[in-house]
């Protein structure tokens, strides 16, 4: 029973093929298994890092895969709120009166971790005084919701030893 291919039927199901494609329609997939624990920790005021049992590297924010060992790390460690500046940069953006305002971006290494993430520095601080290795402390948002920005910003903490060094240099 050869069916002639020009036979016209009415179909219930039809296909649509868009002649163009927008990147915004892309459905990105992401495994939340590690992120969820991390965000729940933030809601409770805990800073959690993920430790690879094989090489003892601690990642913060948690990474799904340890590139060195090619395994999925699964050991959570509680981290202190202190951190240090790994590197920094400053941007200038305009305020509401169109005046230039420096806007520091700091790469923060949380104490006890081997990774770095980028965050805001308190805007009360002049970025000219930032230096690599400057000790910082995480400042929590007023209301913790279990999101990345629960850590609102970082602010410098006074380090007596460094103050002393500076004084010695000046002398």
């Amino acid at each position, binding site marked *: *029973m*050869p*069916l002639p*291919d*020009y036979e016209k039927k009415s*179909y219930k*199901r039809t*296909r649509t*093929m*868009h*002649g*163009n*494609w927008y*990147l915004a*329609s*892309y*459905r*990105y*997939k*992401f*495994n939340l298994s590690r992120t969820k624990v991390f965000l729940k920790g933030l809601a409770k005021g805990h800073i959690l890092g993920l430790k690879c049992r094989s090489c003892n590297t601690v990642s913060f924010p948690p*990474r*799904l*895969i*340890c*590139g*060195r*060992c*090619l*395994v*999925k790390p699964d050991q959570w460690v509680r981290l202190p709120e202190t951190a240090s500046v790994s590197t920094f940069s400053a941007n200038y953006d305009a305020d509401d009166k169109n005046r230039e305002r420096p806007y520091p971006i700091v790469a923060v290494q949380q104490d006890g971790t081997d990774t770095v993430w980028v965050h805001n520095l308190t805007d009360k601080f002049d970025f000219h005084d930032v230096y690599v290795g400057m000790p910082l402390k995480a400042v929590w948002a007023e209301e913790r919701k279990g999101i990345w920005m629960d850590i609102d910003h970082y602010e410098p903490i006074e380090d007596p030893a460094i103050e002393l060094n500076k004084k010695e240099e000046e002398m």
Partner: protein
Amino acid sequence: MDKVGIVGYYQVKPGLDIMMSPYEMIFEAVRGALDYADLKRKDLTTVISATNDYYDGKTISNCFKVEAGGAYMKDESKVEMDGAHAAMYGLFRILSGNHKLAMIYGISTPSCYQYESVRVLENDPTFDRPINLLNSYTSGGMQMRAYMKAFGISEEDIAKVAVYNLKNAAKNPLALPEAKKADITIDEVLKSDILSTPLRELMYPMKCDGATAMILAPERQALKITDNPVWIIGVGNVNETYYLGDRDLSVSLSMEMAAGKAYEMAGIKDPKSEIDVAEVFGHTACEDLIIAEAAGLTDKGKGISMVDRGNLNPSGGTMAGYTPCANGLTRIVEAAKQLRNEAEGHQINGAKMAIATGQVGFCAQNNVIYVLERGGN
């Protein structure tokens, strides 16, 4: 050519919408291949991936996959083509003598984007894209018509190939579950929806998420890793013009030339009798035949006889689940499985010599073919 051995492989079980991120799929494939070959990540010297920036929704898509692919602090590169082309890149690196172990992986996630629409962007932007008539369905339909007209083949014959592939897929544990159709009939295929006449829905493979990884090693290294490696003894790659109108769609000249080169390299004089298994990558059931014929497995227009012989695509081929960017690599891995006697459920007994093909472009513009030989006992 020096022998290069396939020493390990792993396929992530395909699915229409896998509940895994691409990152994890790559990790599973690469980790699986390393575990299979009993190797460590530090043994790898180079990592080659087959991905596509459009298919991944980000540019330089391999930069995000370094950790998952085992490429951290290693020599790494990407092929924006089929997995079979990535395997060729890895093969060249091994043959250069600079590398001892190459990891090759391909990944596809069509559940994340509209695959057919993205392929429209493959069109030439000056002529074909403004007209917007050419896409993977219409090109497949035109190719099938050209083949049927040239050799007097009927739609039923093509449907027979689709049925054969879908039945084979039912025996393959790593086929897409939705593509496993053990009870399908020719009638059902001929009554399925028309995509673009005469191409019908069941003659066209289902796109699915999946990842495949494979490890290559030079001869001496391969023999240290395993007792029964699969040797790559010949390879050929030919590209023809983009414009469909400039080609004879009923045959594949590029595959014919590529196969000629590969057979000469492998010392094969009569592929019809010497090749035991063929895993070919065709975008449609009809293209499977065109490629098998061009690879010299049968005479022109007699591809349908391969169905009776039963050594074409024992895994179900592309019809067992089409994974863009990983499919060619899956074909090589399936052929290697046959030679290692590791194909569960679809093993062809006593297979010693196999071919596997990969392609990219509308109507198989760029073809690559591998001749594989069983090593060890």
